[in-house]
């Protein structure tokens, strides 16, 4: 059996756990044909994957405890040629990436996880923090007839950096000691694609418009990334919170009404659209 590894990276709240939940449902339910198919549960502990997939099926958001830990999950899958592959996903917490950017420090365990295999980089397409400038914001405020407020200056902190700067830095660090293992394949997953689909852009176009620094960096190949981009709606819409006091939303209810949960998934990339979340994995494993 072939053993392969794909590191799952992304800032906090970028959709990493939701991806794993949807993927586990997709391959185990066998509701639709996928490029990588489920093989077996042998020699593995599926409790974490089963738990997050159950929440995903119920259209409930993942709880923060689940998302806050670094985990190593694995799946036994089989490709279209019939080759069995044990695919391991080092699922690094968003907190670890915050620590890497802000504190320039990486836990030894996290470093080992990041040094394994190819890379799935998750970016929440609807919460990208673009750089904004004082002179433009102040002008806008004045045009709107509002008053500016003085004396509330904020001192610099790395967390204030634009999303694209943090992502570029992460990818650069993955190509420098102590995290470098040589050139790798990279799939940029623009999650919450349903939130930006109305903008009518393809994933690479969205990178160009909303993350131009990242797009330039990847195009210039200075660190040798072989990359592609996908738009992914792994939920199909907003899910309900776990808090029992929060009223259930009609959107989540509509998602639950779908007969096949796998059809919630929408993947856009490489010139096609499908429900098959395993396509980026197949591309990474080429």
């Amino acid at each position, binding site marked *: 059996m072939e053993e392969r590894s794909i590191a799952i990276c992304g800032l906090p709240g970028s959709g990493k756990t939701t991806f794993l939940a949807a993927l586990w449902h997709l391959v185990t339910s066998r509701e639709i044909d996928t490029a990588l198919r489920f093989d077996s549960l042998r020699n593995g502990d599926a409790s974490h994957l089963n738990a997050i997939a159950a929440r995903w099926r119920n259209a409930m958001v993942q709880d*923060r*405890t689940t998302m*806050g*830990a*670094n985990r190593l999950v694995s799946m036994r899958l089989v490709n279209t040629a019939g080759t069995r592959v044990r695919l391991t996903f080092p699922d690094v*917490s968003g*907190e*670890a990436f915050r*620590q*890497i950017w802000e504190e*320039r*420090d*990486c*836990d*030894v365990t996290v*470093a080992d996880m990041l040094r394994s295999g190819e890379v799935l980089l998750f970016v929440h397409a609807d919460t990208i923090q673009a*750089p*904004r*400038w*004082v*002179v*433009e*914001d*102040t*002008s806008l405020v004045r045009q709107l007839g509002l008053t*500016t*407020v*003085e004396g*509330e*200056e*904020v001192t*610099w902190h*790395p967390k*204030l*950096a*634009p999303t*694209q*700067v943090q992502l*570029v*830095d992460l990818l*650069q*660090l993955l190509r*420098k000691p*102590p*995290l470098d293992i040589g050139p790798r394949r990279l799939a940029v997953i623009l999650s919450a694609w349903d939130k930006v689909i109305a903008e009518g852009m393809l994933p690479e176009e969205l990178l*160009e418009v909303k993350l*131009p*620094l990242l797009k*330039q*960096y990847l*195009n*210039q*190949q*200075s*660190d040798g990334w072989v990359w592609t981009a996908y738009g992914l709606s792994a939920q199909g819409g907003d899910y309900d919170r776990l808090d029992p006091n929060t009223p259930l939303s009609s959107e989540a209810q509509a998602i639950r009404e779908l007969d096949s949960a796998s059809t919630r998934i929408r993947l856009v990339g490489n010139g096609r659209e499908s429900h098959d979340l395993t396509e980026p994995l197949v591309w990474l494993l080429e």
Partner: protein
Amino acid sequence: MPEEAIFRCDNPDCRVEETGKCVEGLALTECPHFGRTSPVIGEPPRVDEREDIPERGLRLPSGDRLTTSAAASVLRAGDAHLAAILGPTDSGKTSLIASLYDLFQEGSVEGLSFAGSRTLHAFEQACHDARAASRRVEPSIDRTRIGGVAFYHLVLGGINLGLLNLLLADRAGEEYRTLADEPSIGAGFVELTRADTLNVLVDGARLLDSGARHNVRSEVVMTLQALIDGNMAKPGQRVALVLTKFDAIAESPLQKRVESDFNALLLSVRRLFGNSYGTVEPFQTAASPKSMAVKRGFGVAALLRFWLNQRLAQIPSLNAAPPASKRAIGRLTVLDI
């Protein structure tokens, strides 16, 4: 003696002892792991074994400005351009550096693309007071503090450029100001003798001041004279004479006078030092304008093009062999700061 309050957690990934915050984002009173210590298995290690325990985290590159020795490594590694930016305090050196980086936040510049940087933290810090996240109502840039030279770093790429490292030397204006008093101290200003381009900033706001305008012109001439007399100027070194804060000039009734002063200064520099430098070219910039009268980063792209013009002609492809014998590293003294 009372014990100090210590935060403990049995989650090995949690840094609550250092940060006071739960790694899972929970309130400390709600976290099931908080207040518990990790179980100890077996005997505690002997002292000598404890000393062998590795540090918990791996240190990563800092993202701060490069030291001279780190900059030397960049120059040694391949194609690079070193731009020295000279000017008195508050003439706009850091604004210029920050605005060049910020232009790439929105896309390619003059056909050149961002390809990487070892100093992203430093760039972000330099940009902060002009960014909305600072919650200022007027952009501001923190001045460089006295303490020697350090370098901002960019990797740029382009069709005719391949990949090129750009180093931007950053030194406090106060230190440059002493050059005209005592040119011999310039021997320690390694960035000047190694620079591919010298960028001499002419403070536009001071040119608007009737009292200060004459001193501005004098300071520029004396600085360039000091570089020659201190043997810091090299044959072929290219000079950009950069009129900064053009936004203030454009909004002033004294605009024509300032432009006339600047042109006169340019002619003087060319007449006095034309034989000592490769070329002297004028530029107007508004790196961090305080109003929308002039576009943010005005003139900075043209300056970048000037820096790299020779490179664009010299570098045929991405795979060109590093021109080791021609590199500036051959002239660079390695100094740790």
